[in-house]
């Protein structure tokens, strides 16, 4: 389509809360889901993305534009991803995992899931439970038993800090 008009093609994406976003086709096709629509010729009108809300879609589009503006330099792309995700809380990251999965964007999926994993590194068990809202379903006796069995693993450094 870009070849026909000579100007970059813009796609219109619609979130599940009816927000409309314009994004360059060259950036949007980072999503395999959208790329397939473009290749099948059904991306002409508004593309409804029923599983992504406006707030998350805005973030994803910021990422699409940012990463596609970087030339093929994996180091620079990585540092962009790190910076892009650095200030996101878990709720936002979880929404982005869902969106990246739905949009079939492997680079974003890898980056966000790695970020969630990274958050847990060197943290205490209690911190992980609090941060991710996980209920401790061990009875005190069971927890003590597991801890006793694995006590040699709790000698390493662990922290309750956010960093």
């Amino acid at each position, binding site marked *: 389509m870009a070849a026909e008009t000579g100007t970059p093609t813009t796609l219109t994406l619609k979130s599940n809360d009816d927000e409309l976003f314009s994004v360059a086709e060259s950036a949007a096709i980072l999503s395999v889901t959208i790329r397939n629509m473009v290749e099948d010729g059904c991306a002409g009108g508004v593309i409804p993305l029923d599983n992504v809300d406006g707030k998350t879609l805005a973030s994803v589009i910021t990422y699409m534009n940012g990463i596609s503006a970087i030339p093929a330099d994996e180091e620079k792309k990585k540092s962009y991803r790190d910076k892009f995700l650095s200030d996101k809380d*878990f*709720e936002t990251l*979880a*929404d982005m*995992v*869902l969106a990246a*999965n739905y949009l079939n964007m492997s680079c974003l*999926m890898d980056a966000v*899931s*790695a970020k*969630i*994993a*990274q958050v*847990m*590194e*060197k943290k205490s*068990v209690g911190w*992980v*439970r609090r941060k*991710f*809202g*996980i*209920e*401790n*379903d*061990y009875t005190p006796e*069971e*927890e003590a038993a*597991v*801890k006793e069995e*694995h006590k*040699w*693993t*709790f*000698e*390493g450094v*662990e922290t309750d800090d956010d960093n």
Partner: protein
Amino acid sequence: MEQTVERSPNVQRGYRVQAPLVDSVSCYCKVDSGLKTVVGARKFVPGSKICIQPDINPRAHRSKNSRRERTRIQPPLLPGLPDDLAIACLIRVPRVDHNKLRLVSKRWFKLLAGNFFYSLRKSLGMAEEWVYVVKRDKDNRISWHAFDPTYQLWQPLPTVPVDYSSALGFG
């Protein structure tokens, strides 16, 4: 083959070598209706030792039930994410934190302690290799350690069982 060759002239002559067909059918019916136990079945079906395994795993049904139970009441691994995507995140946690994270919840324990988690990490090229070192101190006591080359960390391991702590060597 030889039997067929022999039987053909018998049939032609008008008498049977084998038991009558009707009798054998009724015999199988009897087995079906009277089949209460494996031992009982073996009495009726010659050679059934090969077909019917008496050592049926008594836990087979229980595990099926408990799986159904689990899917009904189990909490998500990571609230806000379906389990497959939560696992996609958790397999990226470095190995050095795995044992500690088993304490987060019972489901995390099952996931992190199970083979599925490791096979997934291995198939995606995320498995981390550690170096295991057995050393003997000047008092001839044996201890072992693991070295994590990625994070350049020595990892503690459980103490060597008493039976082996003064062994002269392994292998």
